[in-house]
């Protein structure tokens, strides 16, 4: 934890420490009383604060860092929120630190600090604010305005405001190695092979390159099986921060490699998803049969182009895209008014009850109406038996299949596809009827809307077809169809009165659904978009891994943690080519807040380091999400 070390190495170290000691009791009280009124935080909650230097500074020689102390802004103590520092809780800091998050705390109370000098965003001049209330309020107002300032935001347009502060957040995860282009250069890779060592799939690398790797992986796995009669789980190289995670499910071996600071548990979860995909395509029983007599069977001959495309897509969603569906294990929901959603579900329900001639009880297992946009599915409606629901992973696998099946295809066709839902029954197939109710069209403002009806009977296609078309007719007749095919209520971060927040993800644990604002992307070349999403994703991952132990279990039921990414070196961000903009210094704050009801991930605008304000915005977001719950989430669905 380099930043802190510097901090503690300064001459004033001792005196600061002593004032902190005296504040200890008082600050704990502050935290509680602050949080209590609106949100009833568990009194036992732990507030953890961590300061993390950006990854790119890690490449510098450690000895130079100490010389660059003068670059470090002057510190000033502010008694806003004091926090308990978990000193072990800092994976991306110095190379000698432990990789795993340690649950046992070293509860030193430390003060937070902020700058003496705050840069005036409009002039770029340094202003000595001295934290005068007046000046500060002024600044806050101005920054608050800045979030409405984009021309794409309706609010910004009507007020005619110009951008004051860039809403762009910096990237602290630039990895120099990955700019090169060979197999070793990737900071993340996935390998799938058979127990006989035959390659099935790898995210990067050509056959020639990966076959030796597959051999080594197989040898390592076999070594543990033979000598220890156990399966290897992980190899952690703490110096180089490399993690290798293994999943052995004979006849398949999967391995993930990461240099991004992900925990073993996160990687194992990702491997489980890849394995689940294989099973969704060939179920476990078939797989065992294929390998039963021929242990050297080459599974690649059995899989199809689609399977490899889908695996590749899953890998890319896992590593480069902001796709919280996988990491949060939750689904995103299509925003709809409470009454609209309610009426749609009522209509579906009444049709199900009254139309038992076309669709005898038990034929339909599960139904979904989905909105589909840029490879991203949102739930509009759910038809499910009372007390049952499908696992989110199963649904995500289904989404992957649908995405590819409708590329270059006539939209009017109906699909009938067998799919194994590994979390439902890994040995059998279910059958999905899939039809597009509407196609995306800018002129009419419609979205891709998909109807999915799932049955256990392989010859139920015509029943599903009839029910599907009856359902859509009825919804159209009741004038409800329009609500499903038009995305009218999507919201941006600027629609919520939560200043300084760049992005957030809120997961309602009860519904296994999450919500996040639409990304506001202005220069959207595919590469830029990819970088942007990857950046957001890694901020969120960082936040999450700061509060879980190595088994992926949050260290407390209720946790509120701030992360602070700070630039301590000269920053060469090559994304920013525009000459007229002065590059912002990296000074990022993020917040993660986990309670039994929800999880909140917050990424603040660059330069915001006042925890007081961040916490206030966080509370506003939570309040907003709770207030709008019936709009943002499917609470009940059409149950039968």
């Amino acid at each position, binding site marked *: 934890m380099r930043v802190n070390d510097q901090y503690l190495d300064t001459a004033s170290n001792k005196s600061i420490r002593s004032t902190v000691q005296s504040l200890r009791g008082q600050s704990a009280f502050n935290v509680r009383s602050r949080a209590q009124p609106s949100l009833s935080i568990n009194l036992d909650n732990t507030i953890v604060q961590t300061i993390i230097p950006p990854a790119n500074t890690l490449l510098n020689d450690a000895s130079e860092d100490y010389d660059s102390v003068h670059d470090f802004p002057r510190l000033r103590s502010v008694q806003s929120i004091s926090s308990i520092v978990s000193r072990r809780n800092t994976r991306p800091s110095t190379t000698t630190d432990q990789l795993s998050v340690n649950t046992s705390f070293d509860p030193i109370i430390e003060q937070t600090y902020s700058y003496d000098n705050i840069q005036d965003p409009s002039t770029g001049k340094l202003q000595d604010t001295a934290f005068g209330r007046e000046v500060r309020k002024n600044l806050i107002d101005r920054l608050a305005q800045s979030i409405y300032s984009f021309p794409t935001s309706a609010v910004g347009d009507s007020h005619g405001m110009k951008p004051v502060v860039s809403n762009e957040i910096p990237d602290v995860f630039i990895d120099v190695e990955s700019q090169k282009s060979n197999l070793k250069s990737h900071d993340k890779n996935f390998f799938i092979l058979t127990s006989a060592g035959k390659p099935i799939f790898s995210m990067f690398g050509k056959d020639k390159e990966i076959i030796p790797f597959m051999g080594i992986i197989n040898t390592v796995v076999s070594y543990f099986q033979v000598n220890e009669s156990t399966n290897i789980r992980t190899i952690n190289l703490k110096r180089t921060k490399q993690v290798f995670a293994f999943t052995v499910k004979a006849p398949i071996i999967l391995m993930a490699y990461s240099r991004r600071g992900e925990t073993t548990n996160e990687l194992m979860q990702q491997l489980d998803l890849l394995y689940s995909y294989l099973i969704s395509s060939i179920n476990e029983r078939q797989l065992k049969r294929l390998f039963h007599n021929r242990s050297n069977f080459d599974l690649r001959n059995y899989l199809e182009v*689609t399977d490899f*495309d889908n695996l590749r897509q899953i890998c890319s969603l896992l590593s480069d895209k902001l796709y919280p569906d996988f990491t949060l294990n939750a689904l995103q929901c299509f925003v709809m008014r409470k009454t609209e959603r309610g009426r749609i579900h009522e209509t579906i329900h009444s049709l199900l009850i009254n139309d038992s001639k*076309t669709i005898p009880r038990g034929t339909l297992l599960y139904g979904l109406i989905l909105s589909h946009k840029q490879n991203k599915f949102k739930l509009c409606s759910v038809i499910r038996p009372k007390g049952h629901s499908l696992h989110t992973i199963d649904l995500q696998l289904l989404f992957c299949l649908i995405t590819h099946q409708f590329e*270059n295809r006539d939209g009017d*066709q109906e699909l*009938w*596809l067998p799919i194994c839902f590994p979390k439902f029954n890994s040995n059998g197939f279910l059958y999905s009827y899939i039809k597009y109710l509407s196609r995306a069209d800018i002129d009419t403002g419609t979205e891709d809307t998909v109807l999915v009806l799932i049955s256990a009977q*392989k010859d139920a296609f015509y029943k599903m077809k009839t029910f599907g078309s009856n359902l859509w*007719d009825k919804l159209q007749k009741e004038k409800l*169809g329009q609500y499903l095919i038009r995305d009218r209520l999507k919201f941006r971060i600027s629609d919520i009165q939560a200043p300084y927040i760049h992005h957030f993800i809120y997961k309602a644990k009860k519904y296994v659904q999450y919500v996040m604002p639409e990304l506001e992307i202005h220069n959207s070349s595919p590469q830029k978009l990819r970088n942007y999403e990857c950046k957001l994703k890694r901020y969120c991952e960082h936040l999450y891994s700061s509060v879980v132990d190595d088994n992926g279990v949050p260290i407390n039921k209720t946790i509120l943690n701030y992360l602070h990414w700070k630039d301590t070196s000269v920053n060469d961000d090559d994304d920013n080519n525009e000459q007229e903009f002065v590059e912002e210094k990296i000074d990022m704050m993020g917040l993660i807040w986990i309670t039994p009801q929800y999880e909140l991930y917050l990424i603040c605008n660059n330069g915001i380091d006042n925890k007081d304000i961040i916490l206030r915005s966080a509370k506003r977001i939570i309040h907003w999400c709770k207030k709008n719950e019936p709009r943002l989430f499917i609470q009940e669905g059409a149950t039968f």
Partner: protein
Amino acid sequence: MSNPITSIKLVLLGEAAVGKSSIVLRFVSNDFSENKEPTIGAAFLTQRVNINDHTVKFEIWDTAGQERFASLAPMYYRNAQAALVVYDVTKPQSFIKARHWVKELHEQASKNIIIALVGNKIDILEDNENERKVAREEAEKLAEEEGLLFFETSAKTGTNISEVFLGIGEKIPLKGLEDEHNNNGLNVTEDQRINLANTANASENASACSC
């Protein structure tokens, strides 16, 4: 009611990547796309065609060619009145597979099923006749022995595609006296007919849904 409508249930069979979905896409949308994702399971499409005074409605099952979906095929051809067995003229293996399908159809499918043998991808031969790996005579011989219609097509250029479907349409007894006889014992088909009629009516009300 001036035009009586006859529904023809048609199934496409053949090895993976011979161009079954492309033939359907050309027939239904008069379109072609070079890199098509392989079909998983099966896709269902309909297309209406006027033959003489009749309207024929093709209900097409475009099945997946991959081996692992082969066990599902009987479900699609069981009640079919017509089948296209497709092979790739540049791939001998696909012709062997086509022979198997013809055999299986004769053994398992309904007795009156009309089968068309279709050699696809003849556009490749235009540039270089050496690419041909399945002789036209060989295929004609098979068609003659087994009583099949035979066409060589290109979904890419559209050559002969509509001829295949028209050829089948002409061979199917049109709606009238034979109708009931044909559907004897096929309750599912009878159900479908009612259902599809519903769907057709519905699509007139609901403009967004075009079936």
